[in-house]
């Protein structure tokens, strides 16, 4: 299939791996920022094919994982209201809040629906003027433009029964927080290709310069990742630290101007709590004042929420790359996709779920890349 098979070619993968073996003369630690990249790396076993010493640590770029517990608890309180149709992307439905999850609420009678686009939620609000339709607007810069467009569309239609519960997060402040942390081992980043499709990469240039860290904008197919890793390692070996673009078929330096304009119109930058990590200054988006009428947080008073994380979950250390899932005592035992203790075990892009679904066990010696030996 066009644009897929070419990027999954085993012969080309072997060529890139051989080149990486030639280029890499010492150990390096890289972080892939995006959960989609983690998914491909683990699913295809790419980290197990890398030359010894090249280590991938998995970043915080799973939107499901970093959505704060308070937002989830608020979502569930709103979804439980009888006048509400609560809409969300599918993989938010199984994320555990303090007490329950949206799928379980649905089984108890709440009207919770999966949509594939926020515009579907707007359409639903048009069709059901008797109900309040709420959309859970989470994710990074990738999902923000479509959510902004949904709000603009609802405004144009004069819909008074549509609102969004917003908990957007921004990648560069998240990367800065990782670089600033004392335990940071990251020597180079693979930046999230789809985020950069929207935002371009100019905002990463000061990061690369200030922290002397190579950043390679990278795609999501196996060959994208192998090439991104090779480009990053080459920079490290040559002592360079600039932003390079591997994902040339999708990303331009300045990104998508129209999408950025939609974000600027509808949202404003705000401090944001990242689940498992903590509050990072100016790291999120919330609705701008003039769109407050569409803010579900304002529209629905759900009282005081008291949030409680499971004490055994080490999601914060997973999300910052300090630990891998197989380091966690609960992984695969108390915590499985069937009954997740924390968000990284839920979405296929969550590091814990990616590990679990690929059959990586705590006691297991990785099934290292025998095929290429």
């Amino acid at each position, binding site marked *: 299939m066009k644009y897929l098979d070419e990027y999954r070619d085993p012969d080309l993968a072997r060529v890139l791996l051989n080149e990486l073996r030639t280029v890499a003369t010492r150990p390096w630690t890289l972080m892939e920022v995006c959960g989609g990249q983690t998914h491909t790396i683990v699913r295809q076993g790419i980290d197990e094919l890398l030359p010894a010493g090249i280590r991938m640590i998995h970043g915080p770029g799973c939107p499901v994982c970093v959505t704060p517990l308070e937002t989830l608890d608020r979502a569930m309180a709103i979804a439980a209201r009888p006048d509400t149709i609560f809409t969300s992307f599918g993989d938010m439905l199984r994320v555990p809040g303090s007490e329950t999850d949206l799928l*379980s609420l649905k089984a108890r009678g709440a009207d919770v629906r999966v949509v594939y686009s926020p515009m579907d939620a707007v359409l639903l609000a048009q069709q059901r003027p008797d109900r309040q339709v709420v959309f859970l607007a989470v994710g990074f810069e990738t999902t923000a433009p479509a959510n902004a467009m949904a709000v603009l569309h609802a405004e144009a239609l004069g819909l008074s029964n549509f609102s969004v519960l917003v908990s957007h997060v921004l990648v560069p402040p998240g990367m800065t927080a990782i670089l600033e942390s004392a335990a940071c081992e990251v020597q180079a980043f693979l930046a999230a290709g789809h985020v950069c499709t929207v935002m371009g990469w100019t905002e990463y240039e000061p990061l690369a310069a200030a922290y002397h860290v190579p950043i390679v904008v990278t795609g999501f197919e196996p060959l994208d990742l192998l090439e991104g890793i090779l480009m990053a390692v080459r920079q490290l070996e040559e002592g360079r630290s600039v932003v390079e673009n591997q994902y040339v078929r999708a990303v331009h330096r300045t990104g998508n101007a129209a999408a950025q304009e939609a974000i600027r119109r509808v949202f404003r930058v705000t401090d944001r709590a990242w689940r498992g990590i903590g509050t990072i200054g100016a790291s999120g988006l919330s609705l701008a004042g003039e769109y407050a009428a569409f803010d579900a947080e304002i529209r629905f008073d759900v009282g005081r929420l008291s949030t409680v994380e499971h004490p055994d979950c080490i999601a914060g250390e997973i999300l910052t790359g300090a630990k891998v899932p197989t380091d966690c005592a609960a992984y695969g035992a108390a915590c499985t996709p069937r009954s997740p203790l924390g968000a990284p075990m839920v979405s296929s892009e969550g590091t814990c779920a990616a590990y679990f679904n*690929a059959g990586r066990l705590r006691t297991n010696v990785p099934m290292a890349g025998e095929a290429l030996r």
Partner: protein
Amino acid sequence: MTALDPSAGTCPMPLGETERVLLGHGSGGQLSAELIGDLLVPALGRAAPPGPLEDAAVFTVGDTDLAISTDAYVVSPIFFAGGDIGSLAVHGTVNDLAMRAAMPLALTVAYVIEEGFALADLRRIAASVGAAACAAGVAVVTADTKVVGRGAADGIFVVSTGVGRRLPGTAPSAAAAAPGDVVLLSGPIGCHGTTVLSAREGLGFDTDIASDTQPLHRLVEAMVAAGGTAVHSLRDPTRGGLASALNEIARDSHVGVEVQERALPVPAAVQAACELLGLDPAQVANEGCLVAFVAPDRADAVLAAMRSRPEGRHAVRIGTATDKDPGRVVVLTAVGSRRVLDMLVGEQLPRIC
């Protein structure tokens, strides 16, 4: 599990739902297996079926092996490209019998219809049942009709039961695969699930895919003619997809399974839809293909027999059964690494981005 009292008011454990049925319990994945294994089968006591759970049960009357299977069809939407709930109710049950090498003798059909359902649609569905049964060469010998109040059903549900006669000298079972067996797949995967999902959600994919729903008993007949008792296990990968079918055979036969990812026939449109929605084609439902574990010395003959039938003209070899890691299905990935292919937990949930 950590010892926590779920009834305590301030329990920090995200409980999930433990007291109600979730949609995921019907997904054909791990939740379904738990519901059947932990609740439904134990409740039968001494009336529970012996041995592993199969697509159809086999029992002997006189010197004839008969197979019986029952299934409820609740597909939404009821009409979709390639079929409808009526043809599905015939094919699904015929295929469950065929997976035990039984040729269908008779079907029964029950309709549960919601008040207000359009008679034109009912006419279409009934005609579709008739046409599918005629094409499969099986009689619908008795039926039942119930009408429930508005809201008590989603349009129409169809339940069918089938009885078949097993081909002499064969005994395929999910528990009969052996190390060394060749794993054959009769055709492309993912068409039915993707078609229904895109129709249900109004995704507006501009694709030419249609459900693969079709009867498979004649394909099985050809396979058994070519392979006889070398055809160890047969399964049609319906809900839960190929991943569930392979995992069930691996578990019940205590074998490992190795599958070549690049050998899996995934049509471009299915691949595209799955990429967009974040689904795994190996976990998407099918209604017209089967997976077979065949002794290596007869594998080529069985594959040739499959390819000689229209239902199996795209049949391929996708892997082998091993004595390593019994119960585990491993995929050799496109870039040459390995990963475990597990069953779906609950429902397939489309991802955010």
